């Protein structure tokens, strides 16, 4: 599979469907995530209310984004922090590099951050002679495997335990760990022990932020491993890489989201660690970084404001949409070829990368609506996917054959008499082909269908012709009486 190339979605899907390891990893995910979320939601009677409140809060913030961002900046600075406004990924990379160079950083530890993925920070730092060390276990695994994340909250969810055992042996053997571990607790311990010294060695710690608090200028991260705390408190500098729409007005507002985030994501009541950072270490603090920087990335988000896809900016990155997506469940995240995957990725990626390169993503959906149903902030994902399909169609990105097919079909569909004639011919032809078993095993122009399933044969006449004949017979019968 080729990573980070959304234009070969179909080829990637084929490879994914043939990948036995991926299929067993996805089966585990599918069996766990869906019932776990449901159970967590069922245990909290006010989940729907909280969810509605979260949605309203996000809409309020998006309607007043400038106000809350400026308020965040003011309060962050007042607490001794620095805010870097970055329009593009390149701006954000440059800002991070400048900070790293100010302390002549050789290594940086990293907590899990999708914005760091969005700006391809690891590659960039490596290119500039700085070693990034991922400290979230999932991120650590895919860093060793040199792969992008396949899920926004479980980056290595596509890997089986056996694959991780092999990967650890391969990379840890040179560190003296020559025994292949197969028990998850032992594997985790091995990774922890190797990572432990890296925290002390790092000059800079980089984390993401789940929320930015306007009233206090703080950032919040949630993790299950505590790695984020070590990443952000031990080094000289803490850099938060985040994006505009993460801001919420108050700490209390953040708790609304914290109560729905973990439940939607993993089915936990709450993540194991929720950490609030406000500015650098103060004189009487026992620990903490000497400097606190917030990289605020825009990367197209401000143009989504006021557009038909603005609702996407409500996203709290829980991953419920992908966990419940039949397409994601089949092909996994790497197939999408983008940083953000699943339904939320298929809506966000065209906004970040353009409709041209990402045209498969909004199309590769059955529009079943389960993503919208489980979205804790009610993002109308199917509607937004259709919006992108329209933009793609308008831009002439739909293949010629499909466009031609639609025109021919529409020509008939708008002429009922002609349509009826064509339909009567078609059903007779198909009936003849499927007469023996009542179904067709192959059909030359419908391989997409018949490669994987039979095509039930039509009954042989259209409903409308039979109905009209029956009505006519009844009328004649009535007249005869």
């Amino acid at each position, binding site marked *: 599979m080729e990573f980070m190339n959304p234009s070969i979605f179909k080829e990637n899907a084929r490879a994914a469907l043939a990948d036995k390891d991926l299929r067993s990893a996805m089966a585990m995910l599918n069996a766990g995530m869906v019932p776990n979320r449901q159970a967590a939601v069922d245990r909290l009677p006010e989940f729907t209310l909280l969810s509605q409140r979260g949605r309203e809060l996000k809409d309020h913030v998006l309607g007043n984004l400038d106000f809350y961002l400026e308020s965040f900046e003011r309060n962050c600075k007042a607490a001794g922090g620095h805010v870097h406004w970055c329009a593009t990924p390149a701006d954000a990379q440059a800002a991070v590099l400048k900070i790293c160079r100010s302390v002549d950083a050789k290594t940086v530890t990293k907590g899990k951050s999708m914005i760091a993925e969005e700006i391809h920070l690891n590659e960039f730092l490596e290119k500039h002679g700085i070693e990034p060390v991922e400290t979230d276990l999932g991120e650590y695994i895919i860093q060793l495997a040199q792969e992008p994340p396949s899920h926004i909250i479980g980056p290595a969810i596509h890997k089986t335990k056996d694959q991780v055992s092999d990967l650890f042996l391969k990379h840890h053997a040179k560190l003296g760990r020559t025994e292949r571990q197969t028990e998850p607790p032992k594997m985790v311990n091995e990774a922890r022990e190797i990572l432990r010294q890296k925290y002390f060695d790092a000059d800079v710690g980089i984390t993401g932020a789940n929320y930015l608090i306007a009233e206090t200028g703080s950032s919040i991260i949630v993790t299950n491993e505590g790695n984020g705390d070590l990443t952000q408190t031990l080094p000289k500098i803490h850099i938060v890489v985040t994006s505009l729409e993460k801001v919420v007005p108050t700490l209390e507002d953040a708790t609304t989201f914290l109560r729905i985030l973990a439940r939607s994501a993993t089915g936990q009541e709450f993540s194991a660690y929720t950490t609030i950072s406000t500015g650098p270490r103060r004189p009487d603090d026992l620990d903490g970084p000497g400097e606190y920087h917030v990289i605020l990335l825009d990367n197209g988000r401000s143009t989504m404001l006021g557009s038909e896809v603005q609702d996407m900016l409500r996203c709290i990155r829980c991953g419920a949409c992908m966990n419940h997506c*039949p397409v994601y469940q089949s092909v996994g995240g790497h197939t999408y070829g983008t940083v953000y995957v699943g339904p939320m990725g298929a809506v966000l990626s065209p906004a970040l990368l353009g409709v041209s390169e990402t045209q498969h993503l909004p199309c590769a959906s059955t529009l079943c609506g389960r993503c919208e149903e489980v979205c804790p902030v009610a993002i109308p994902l199917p509607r937004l996917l259709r919006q992108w399909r329209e933009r793609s169609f308008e831009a002439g990105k739909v293949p010629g054959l499909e466009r031609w097919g639609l025109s021919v079909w529409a020509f008939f569909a708008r002429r009922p008499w002609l349509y009826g004639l064509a339909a009567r011919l078609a059903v007779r032809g198909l009936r003849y082909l499927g007469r023996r078993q009542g179904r067709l095993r192959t059909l030359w122009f419908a391989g997409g269908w018949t490669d994987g*399933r039979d095509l039930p044969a039509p009954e042989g006449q259209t409903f409308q012709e039979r109905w009209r004949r029956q009505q006519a017979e009844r009328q004649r019968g009535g007249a005869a009486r």
Partner: protein
Amino acid sequence: MIDNSAKAPINVGLFATCLVDLFRPTVGFAAAQLITAAGCTVHVPEQTCCGQPAYNSGDRRHSQEIARQVIETFAAYDYVVVPSGSCGGMIAVHYPELFTDDPEWSRRARALAAKTFELTAFLADVMKIDPVAAQYDGTATYHDGCAGLRELGVRQQPRELLAGVAGLKLEEMAETEACCGFGGTFCVKYGEISTDIVSRKTANVAKTSADLLLAGDLGCLLNIAGRLKREGSSVQVRHVAEVLAGMTDQAPPIGENGEG
């Protein structure tokens, strides 16, 4: 407007859907019989398709043209009844979205949307019919079509109606609410993914003791039946209306020739 009192006839326009028209006329007759039995007069005006192929492909112009045609054709009836949650959802939910910039057509689309119902929802919620008098000996499992379930809230209605069918036992499969992978043109454009999705559905069917799979959408049914038959399954597949109308003797199960 609509007068349900006294003896004023309730005129129902049956939007059969293009798939029923082409593949499974029996569903159209079953729907007509059920609606008639509920005390309404059924009309089948000349019709083609609801426009979903264009709508879901991003072709707004053709979607609007076809929607206008359907709106004009069915405007005069008291109700429009559709034996499909997908096409019903198209008319009841998506037509109004197609004309947000056009006040006149928006009004007409909303008027049609307000009186358009999926078949089982119409029978159970609008006409509040008594248990149907049908008979079917066997164990069925029910697949919830996505649009019916999530756009129109169709879930209990077919089950309530089936509860009245003598001899029929309903055994729910796991994940009845999961998509079958049909998705309109999706199943052809992304055929391999669609096949994988429907295989999860057929695996769930196989875990039950059902000998019959029912649903209210012919798209899902053709897809699931096609996969079951490819897998060599003996589970029969039918539209719920066929069982409710007691018309299972009118046509062999979907994808079969009548001799088993």
